[in-house]
């Protein structure tokens, strides 16, 4: 603390503000509130230097302040966030969709695009469900509804491709047989010299789409 202002120095400081104990108390509080100006601080300092009771009180406030600020935070119970969120009223479905679109515009555009693509593909696919038979040699082949029959005793030279049909081979085929979206049955007497390939185009296409879908969405997620 500074010199107590007695003796010869007292005359020099006559015009400075002096405070008694009663006045010093609110100034002390101002100090601890962090609101004390320079003049008040000087007056308080001078008073504390000459008044042991107020100085003791000042130190007690200082300890109180320090103690209060040393109080630790209690640990927040774990799972509090979860229980707060669980207590909220349930989310409406429409809103969550809308929000998803807002938050993931790229993914939303991709998804919309794929849906349109898939829709158009499926409509084309639907129109394309009639039976088609193509081959190098179609002599003697029988088509009955969705059945394609290579009758017994018939020999077809070359490859045969059948789409959207149940194929029954009772005769002989000197070439490859390809069945797209269909099935095949053989009689014991049947003979196919080439390879038999079955393609399920819709399934392949869907697989392809699924791969595309994830390929498009994952990076944008």
């Amino acid at each position, binding site marked *: 603390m500074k010199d107590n202002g007695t003796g010869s120095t007292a005359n020099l400081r006559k015009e400075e503000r002096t405070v008694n104990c009663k006045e010093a108390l*609110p100034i002390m*509080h101002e100090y*601890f*509130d962090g*609101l004390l100006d320079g003049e008040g601080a000087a007056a308080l300092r001078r008073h504390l230097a000459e008044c042991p009771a107020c100085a003791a*009180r000042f130190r*007690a*406030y200082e*300890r*109180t*302040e320090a*103690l*209060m*600020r*040393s*109080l*630790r*935070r*209690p*640990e*927040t*119970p774990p799972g*509090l*966030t979860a*229980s*707060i*969120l669980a*207590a*909220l*009223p349930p*989310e*409406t479905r429409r*809103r*969550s969709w*809308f*929000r998803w679109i*807002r*938050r993931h515009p790229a993914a939303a555009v991709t998804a919309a695009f794929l849906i349109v693509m898939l829709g158009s593909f499926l409509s084309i696919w639907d129109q394309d469900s009639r039976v088609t038979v193509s081959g190098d040699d179609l002599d003697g082949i029988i088509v009955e509804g969705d059945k394609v029959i290579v009758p017994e005793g018939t020999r077809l030279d070359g490859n045969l491709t059948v789409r959207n049909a149940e194929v029954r081979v009772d005769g002989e085929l000197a070439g490859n047989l390809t069945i797209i979206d269909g099935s095949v049955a053989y009689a014991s007497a049947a003979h196919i010299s080439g390879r038999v390939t079955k393609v399920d185009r819709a399934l392949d296409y869907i697989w392809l789409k699924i791969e595309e879908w994830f390929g498009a969405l994952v990076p944008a997620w």
Partner: protein
Amino acid sequence: MDTPSIETRLVRLAKSGDRGAFADLVELYKDKIYHLAYRMLGNRQEAEDVVQETFLRVFRSLDRYDESLKFSTWIYRIGTNLAIDRLRRRRAAYSLDAETASASDSDGQDWHGLLASEDMSPEGHVLLSETQRRIRDAIRSLPEKYKSVVILKYLHDMSLQEIGDVLNMPVTTVKTRVHRGREFLRRRLEVEEDFT
């Protein structure tokens, strides 16, 4: 206008139905509101209830949130009011209880807040130091009028102006309460010091 604070932006998102944004607000404030409620009530369970209720109110009032008010002021106001309500209800129940003291069975809810926190260390499983316990008890014994002011000032580092905003009272009133609260605490803490 200056750029909106994180809280303002999160409130806007939460208003539009973004639960993630609301969860972020919870993360930002749950510890603070828990600490506030815990110091006000001195009881873990009640503090947890107050935090739950605070966020539920915030959620329900998002549409009415006035952006000219700081979000922290707003949520502290809600939390403080809920805690004060509980203190008052407890006091009412306590005086009622005292009248019919002999008839009441010991695990009545009204006693809960006054007694439950004493047996278990509220700071989790860590044993409280003697000093920490003394401060805690001094705060607990503060009259309600000074309690909220003292807690906001010392434990939440708020300025007198902010405290006035939270409690909806003039700064001069806050100041008086801080001074009286400080005096009260000094006496409590000094007396206890003499004992040890």
